[in-house]
């Protein structure tokens, strides 16, 4: 992508090839990440099918937060690895992602949240994550703009961070394309049928036969799975988000409030990017943002950070969380459809998990080690009743 370096590579023009080893449905960070990792391992006979433009889905709409602070050991350990990969992304992929480890500061406004917080911190410490509990005064030293009278206690992991999501997509796409992977934009998958030992995909640009198919379609993954008769339990939830005018850098961590789901951080360009949980009865996948979101967020924000009252909102939008019933992703092959792989249900942590999940998936599909996460996150777990809920969901 360097200008004039002869390395300019376009998304694949024309119809997809007639046959391939692996077809990936969804050109978000998960689909493109897997495509890149596969190509790195010599599996280049891959076709990525994205129905819109790059960054049209959740991958292009999120706030770029990346954290190790979770309430389940699985998520903590996975994110430790993912953050290591984020640190070297620019060097490996050749695109700046502006990853900054300013930490995540979680705030508790209610006394009953203290015990939950302490339990989570202890779990994270056991995994080697340096999260520590903080008093309101310590939180105030880290973020002086906070009204610490509103806080009971806090916890902080300095190694968590924020990044800018869009370049991941160009980077992964470019590196995959360079290695011979096809990446098709504005290409919808209309139908999938079983075809011999493999699959036949009917797309808006022609037919593709694939030995294996990966469903990395995020909030649209149930729609895709249904094409093969697989019912998935994940549902799209709208999450609204806004960004403000750009300011000179002053805010170190991403800050989040447990009770309201408020989160805010400062991007590389200086904008405050922020969201909050808002009651929502809209059905289906919604990308519009409401006045109700703005008023809910403003009220909580101005109460907690009075100095932000004069911050000007530039734009508000929304993106879909692909929500699984227990807050953990749905991975692996569903029963009865071998060769069809699920990579969905990541709730609000799909982007940050993509680097590690992509690597693990590619390793497995290339004939290597099958990480235990693919078994723990199997679709069957819901029917089996074997679930452990992840509770630290934001926004």
């Amino acid at each position: 992508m360097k200008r004039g370096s002869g390395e300019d590579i376009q998304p694949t023009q024309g119809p997809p090839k007639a046959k391939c080893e692996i077809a990936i449905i969804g050109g978000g960070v998960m689909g493109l990440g897997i495509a890149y990792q596969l190509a790195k391992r010599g599996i280049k006979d891959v076709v990525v099918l994205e129905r819109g433009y790059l960054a049209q889905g959740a991958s292009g709409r999120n706030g770029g937060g990346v954290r190790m602070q979770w309430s389940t050991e699985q998520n903590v350990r996975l994110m430790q690895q993912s953050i290591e990969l984020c640190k070297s992304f620019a060097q490996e992929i050749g695109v700046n992602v502006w990853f900054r480890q300013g930490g995540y500061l979680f705030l508790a406004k209610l006394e009953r949240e203290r015990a939950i917080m302490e339990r989570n911190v202890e779990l994270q410490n056991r995994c080697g994550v340096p999260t520590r509990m903080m008093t309101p005064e310590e939180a105030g030293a880290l973020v002086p703009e906070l009204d610490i009278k509103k806080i009971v206690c806090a916890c902080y992991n300095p190694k968590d961070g924020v990044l800018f999501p869009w370049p991941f997509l160009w980077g992964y796409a470019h590196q995959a394309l360079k290695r011979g992977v096809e990446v098709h934009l504005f290409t919808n998958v209309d139908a999938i049928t079983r075809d011999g030992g493999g699959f036949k995909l009917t797309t808006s640009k022609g037919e593709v036969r694939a030995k294996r198919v990966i469903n990395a379609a995020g909030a649209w993954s149930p729609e895709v799975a249904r094409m093969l008769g697989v019912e998935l339990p994940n549902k799209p939830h709208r999450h609204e988000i806004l960004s403000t005018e750009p300011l000179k850098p002053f805010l170190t961590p991403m800050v989040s409030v447990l009770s309201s789901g408020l989160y805010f951080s400062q991007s590389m360009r200086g904008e405050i990017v922020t969201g909050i949980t808002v009651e929502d009865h809209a059905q289906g996948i919604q990308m519009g943002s409401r006045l109700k979101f703005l008023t809910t967020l403003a009220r909580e924000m101005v109460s907690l950070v009075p100095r932000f009252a004069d911050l000007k909102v530039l734009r508000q939008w929304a993106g879909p969380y692909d929500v699984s019933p227990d807050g953990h992703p749905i991975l692996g092959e569903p029963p009865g459809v071998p060769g069809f792989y699920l990579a969905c249900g990541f709730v609000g942590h799909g982007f940050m998990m993509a680097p590690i999940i992509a690597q693990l998936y590619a390793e497995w599909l290339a004939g290597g080690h099958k990480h235990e996460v693919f078994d723990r996150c199997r679709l069957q777990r819901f029917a089996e009743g074997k679930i452990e809920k992840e509770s630290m969901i934001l926004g």
Partner: protein
Amino acid sequence: MARADDKRINEVPHGDRLNLSFEGDDVPACAGESVAVALFASGERVLSRSIKYHRPRGFFCLAGHCGACLMRIDGKPNVRACKTPVKEGMRVERQNAFPTGAFDVLGAADFFFPKGMDHHTMMTSPRALNAVLNKVVRQLGGLGKLPDVPASPAELPRPRHKHVDVVVVGGGPAGLGCATETARGGKKTLLVDEQDRVGGSLLAHPQHGVRAANEALAAALKAGVEVLSSSTVLAWYPEDAAVDGGEPGLLAVHTPEGLLKVTASRYVYATGSYDQNAVFVDNDRPGVLPARAVGRLLVRFGVKPAERPVVVGDGPYARALADALARAGAEVTRIDGRDEQIVAAHGHGWVRSVETTRRKKLKCDLVAVAALPAPASELPRQHGVAVAFNDGKGGFHCRVDDDGRANAPHVFACGDVTGFGGIDDAVSAGARCGRAVVASFSANGMGAGARA
């Protein structure tokens, strides 16, 4: 009190004199001016530095639409100087420049990257260098600094709601004409305009001006239109109801008294058009302005824009502006913009010459670009109005029938937002649209005040 380089035209009445505090120095201003106009009239030129290359910037549109004149005013960052009325002692500062706005060492970025820098791929390796890049970019990012003083909770304004028969967004010639018609037709009409003075493009046109704007406004008020000025319609929110349990769909308006939620039986978008620049090298130099901004200076504010202006374009507005500038005593050079076009602007803190396809160096102290303004169709698009891109109409224009009816139910649009046509077209389109709006109430068979 006036400076030697004061550009205010003596023959034109100006408001009472006062002083701004501009980075510690007193700068004279007149009540009724915006900060941007006052600074310009008193000889100040560079108002800010651009975000990436720290290029010097002055104001551009003077109507609150572009992002050129952002300054720190009374301790608040990123405030549009052209939308801020002057007050005695108002503190005005430039942002995003080190050490001062007038001299910015970071402007070296502009010199070292003449063709631009691709921030996506620069310095990704080795890791240590990339880490330094990340740190530097973060420090350079952003425009203003966090506001000085927190707002006190008791001062936060309370939101209100208003329901009317007809709301007209935009108080230019089309909007005023439309609202006057609907009010005369017996419909409770609210007109909302974002400027501190209603009149829209009338206030920038030498052949119309303040008098025409006042007349149009007087007619609207006489007909019974309720007019809200300095009020910006922020959005059409289709999912939100103005009152609990009410029908969803409202306009959110930012008024000086806070948030106003407006619902109506009919919505008319007469939002006009945004001034555009031409594309040539260093077209962002201070002093390269859209023609209507130059018109605003001259016509609304009584400020002489330049001694040696270049006017680019050969349409009726370009001609009218060139004549008016000449009458104000300027030595005007006209470039038709077709057979002869500007290739580059020269100068650093202000334009001092241009290079055209015919002339190597044409000395000037201002460039007025009469490019086709772009229809301001954001709000109608949010409201579901179909738009189409058409270069000849200025950009993305609303698709409406001859009476201004849009495809979205109960929504109309008139004037430049339906495709640039200028003031006379806007006046007649506005009136026609207003009559169609009134007729649409009877066609429904519903009484006034019912929301169909």
